[in-house]
């Protein structure tokens, strides 16, 4: 037997009597220490948890994971191959395009050369034709000028003859004898030249 005597509020005295047996000491806090420590691992939970994890691990490692990984790898390799084939197709297409472009360039340069040649021949033709036309015009002009000169000379001769005859006539009328023809002619010519000059 064990007796607790506690004094409460001055006079009041509380007496507690507890059985002093083996369990008696822990009776006061029995409710909070029933069972073991809440943190201590419980053996059945540890064993079952360990067992289920290890079984899960073995199943995953041996059967399931390799299958999944195989599928993933196969798909990724397929995708990579697709990518590679797409790359090769793209490069082939690129080389085709460059070839095509080179062809286009050669054709274009050829065309440009041809156009240049045509332009040159055209220029040559034009200049030769222009020269021909110029020459023709020059000969025609020369002929016309020669004709004009001849006509002018003829007119001048006629005028000179007429003036000489008039001068001879008037001299005969004034002097009574006809003058020397060569003198008259000389004088007329002199006058006409000075007249033409003035």
């Amino acid at each position, binding site marked *: 037997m064990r007796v*607790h005597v*506690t*004094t*409460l*509020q001055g006079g009041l005295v*509380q007496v*507690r009597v*507890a059985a002093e047996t083996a369990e008696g*000491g*822990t009776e*006061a*806090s029995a409710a*909070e*220490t029933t069972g073991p*420590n*809440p*943190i201590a691992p419980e053996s059945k939970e540890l064993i079952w948890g360990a067992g289920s994890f290890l079984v899960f691990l073995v199943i995953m490692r041996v059967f399931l994971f390799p299958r999944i990984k195989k599928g993933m790898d196969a798909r990724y390799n397929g995708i990579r191959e697709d990518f590679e084939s797409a790359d090769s197709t793209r490069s082939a297409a690129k080389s085709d395009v460059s070839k095509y472009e080179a062809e286009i360039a050669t054709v274009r340069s050829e065309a440009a050369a041809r156009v240049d040649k045509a332009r040159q021949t055209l220029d040559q033709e034009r200049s030769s034709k222009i020269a021909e036309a110029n020459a023709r015009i020059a000969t025609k002009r020369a002929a016309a000028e020669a004709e004009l000169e001849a006509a002018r000379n003829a007119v001048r001769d006629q005028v000179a003859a007429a003036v000489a005859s008039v001068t001879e006539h008037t001299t005969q009328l004034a002097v009574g004898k006809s003058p020397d023809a060569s003198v008259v002619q000389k004088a007329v010519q002199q006058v006409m030249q000075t007249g033409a000059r003035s």
Partner: protein
Amino acid sequence: MEALTRIAHASIRVAAELTPAEAKANAAAQMAGLAYGLAAIGPGIGIGMIFGKAIEAMARQPESAGMVRTTMFLGVAFTEALALIGFVAFILLKFA
């Protein structure tokens, strides 16, 4: 104020009529709260600093965000362990 004095009187009276085991349990409960409170101060500051620095680093170099995030969680895990040991001490003091 009055409520406080009432609780204080009550606890004095409770303490007066406690058996030694109960007195020990009471002291353990009070210490448990104190222990966890103290244990949470340092890790709180530490985790705040870790996250802040990690955000700075990620904002500065977004391309290394993955590496920073993994390292950040590692640092948080180590820092947090201190607070959790405090929590375990709380449980042990209070309930064991």
